[in-house]
């Protein structure tokens, strides 16, 4: 089984305050990139990067594996729209997923969708990933990402 791993998540929208987005990316060499942009109240773009250790990448792989997200498919998920867009791209071993969907408001939106189980899997994984990244970036750079 190949060791290859790559993960990228994006959520954002373009609106009154410009292109507001959050994005992070884990590259095979351990580089974690984080970007958070909003022009609301003239906030500046935050961009941070750091190298994480092997054990961090391995734990991320475990979280992704346990979520079973690689078994899902975004075919019938709500497409990105005016309200917003999410992208999740993962390479794990020999599989590469690249999912897109709209912003998810709550579990109610999920339960009313055409693929509640798949979307729920995505929803919780994204929350866990954000938690993971916010801890890493927040502690390393002493910033509050949220």
């Amino acid at each position, binding site marked *: 089984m190949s060791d290859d*791993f790559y993960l990228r998540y994006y959520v954002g929208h373009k609106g009154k305050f410009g292109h507001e987005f959050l994005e992070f990316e884990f590259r095979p060499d351990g580089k974690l990139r984080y970007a958070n942009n909003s022009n609301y109240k003239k906030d500046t773009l935050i*961009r*941070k990067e750091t190298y*994480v250790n092997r054990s961090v990448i391995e*734990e991320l792989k475990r979280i992704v594996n346990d979520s079973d997200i690689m078994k899902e498919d975004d075919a019938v998920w709500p497409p990105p729209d005016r309200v917003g867009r999410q992208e999740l791209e993962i*390479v794990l071993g020999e599989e590469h*997923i690249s999912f*897109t969907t709209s912003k998810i408001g709550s579990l109610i939106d999920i339960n009313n969708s055409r693929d509640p189980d798949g979307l729920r899997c995505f929803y919780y994984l994204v929350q866990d990933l954000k938690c993971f990244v916010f801890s890493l970036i927040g*502690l390393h750079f002493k910033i509050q990402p949220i």
Partner: protein
Amino acid sequence: SVFKQNIKKIMSGGDVEVEVNDIDDVSGVVMDEEPDEAETVERIKSGVRVRKGRGFNEASERISMQEGEYDTVDSQQNGDPGPARSVEGWILFITNVHEESQEDTMYDLFREYGSVKNMHLNLDRRTGYAKGYALVEYETFNEAKSALQELDGRDLLGHKLHVDWAFVKGPLKKRGNNNRTSSTTIKTISGTGRSTYRRR
């Protein structure tokens, strides 16, 4: 494709970052990984056997990731391998944390080796149990090192904790064998549910 163009943009030097400067000054360290990293991402993406998702057919926002400069913590500029300091201290990454672990138990374990400046024991957002990892920060390298040595392998609720540095100064060395044959059959599952097979 869109991302191929973006990768080319990176490789043309658009945002090769400062922390990998003075490659010539660092002997014995594989630092030429950095400019090749974009190529590596491209390679592992093209080496897969199964692709799935709408994202392959849609324009992406990933361009927002590739432009501009990224802040780093200064200590990550010299590039020799090893743990990296964070802005205010040294951070350990702990895994194999039992899901019923509590913050105070974790804290008691780690405070024996120094003053714990910060601790994150993150929860699974769905179940409310511990997700399985934690981060602990000490102010000094020696405290962190001591905790790492003494607590790596320590039992907590029947699980052996793994303790390691969270951050390192440079890219991880490639490991494992990536001997992909040059001809790979890729199965692409499009949003419509059709499968197409393409030989590269």
